[in-house]
């Protein structure tokens, strides 16, 4: 058992007071490492809450710089950060909230060439990305590497999330492959109510903390969806699919796929 400093006992007192967390749970949080892919609408609240909670090491992957249009929802970035690399802006805030947290930054896009290498050093992965190719990439990489992850998606007034542990339903069990390019709008095209990102991101952060502390039941084999217009929340039971191309009995996908590369062009050849 680690020796908590007086400051740590004070900082984490509201966790320690929780019977389900306690000193033991807080120690697990302090020893945990989490990779947050995307320092945007979802990655912002996820990183802020995980930092405040005392996650020992947080990795952030994002190749972009902060844009003025991000600030409506990406609450980890401030007005002064416009033009700054998102990973650096995020690191600065995380350090300011909790200097105990070690932050690793990856100013690059996650793709088939670096995914395994980056995720291998983390206990849990959070998908806070904005596009389907990377969502499928994260799913496939985590399934193949046996890593747990939290999936998250938001659009307009809606959000959806589930948690994957090895052996439970994966994204491909639910959605076999990415939709045709442009068929489903992303936030940049369709818009999103900023607070929705916070709602979904904090659910992902809570799932992450539940995973490490072992508290309660994770969103495994369940897809949580909500519509903020009516504030109706629903968890749809989902089953691992035997015929799933990546986690099924006879997987047909044995390598990572970069869907963003013009796959249709390859087919044409």
């Amino acid at each position, binding site marked *: 058992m680690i020796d908590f400093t007086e400051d740590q006992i004070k900082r984490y007192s509201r966790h320690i007071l929780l019977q389900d967390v306690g000193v033991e749970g807080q120690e697990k949080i302090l020893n945990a490492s989490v990779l947050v892919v995307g320092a945007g609408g979802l990655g912002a609240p996820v990183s802020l809450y995980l930092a405040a909670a005392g996650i020992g090491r947080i990795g952030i992957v994002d190749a972009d710089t902060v844009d003025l249009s*991000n600030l409506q929802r990406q609450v980890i970035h401030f007005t002064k950060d416009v033009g700054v690399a998102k990973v650096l802006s995020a690191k600065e805030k995380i350090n300011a909230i909790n200097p105990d947290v070690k932050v690793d930054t990856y100013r690059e896009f996650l793709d088939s060439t670096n995914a395994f290498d980056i995720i291998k050093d983390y206990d849990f992965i959070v998908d806070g990305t904005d596009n389907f190719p990377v969502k499928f990439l994260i799913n496939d990489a985590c399934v193949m590497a046996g890593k747990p992850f939290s999936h998250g998606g938001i659009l307009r007034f809606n959000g959806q999330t589930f948690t994957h542990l090895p052996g439970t339903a994966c994204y491909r069990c639910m959605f076999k492959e990415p939709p045709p390019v442009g068929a489903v709008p992303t936030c940049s095209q369709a818009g999103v109510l900023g607070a929705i990102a916070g709602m979904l991101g904090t659910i992902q952060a809570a799932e992450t903390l539940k995973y490490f502390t072992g508290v309660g039941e994770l969103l495994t084999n369940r*897809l949580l969806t909500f519509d903020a217009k009516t504030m109706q929340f*629903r968890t749809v039971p989902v089953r691992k699919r035997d015929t799933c191309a990546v986690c099924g009995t006879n997987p047909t996908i044995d390598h990572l796929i970069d869907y963003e590369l013009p796959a249709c062009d390859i087919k044409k050849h």
Partner: protein
Amino acid sequence: MAKIQVNGEAQEVQLPLSLSELIKQNNVQQPEMVSVQVNEDFVDRSEWDGIQIKEGDSVDFLYFMGGGSL
């Protein structure tokens, strides 16, 4: 009439009714972009026409949601 559940809500539908017809009746936007479960089993798009809805079935439409970062 048959009582079924669609996205967790009760519906009464006239049988016979294929899954494809049910999807049409429910005004699913961009049906090509939705993943469908019947009684908690995913149904491939190619089977939608052939599946007949039965009394007590529970059908879920899961939509692609992509946003988060940008």
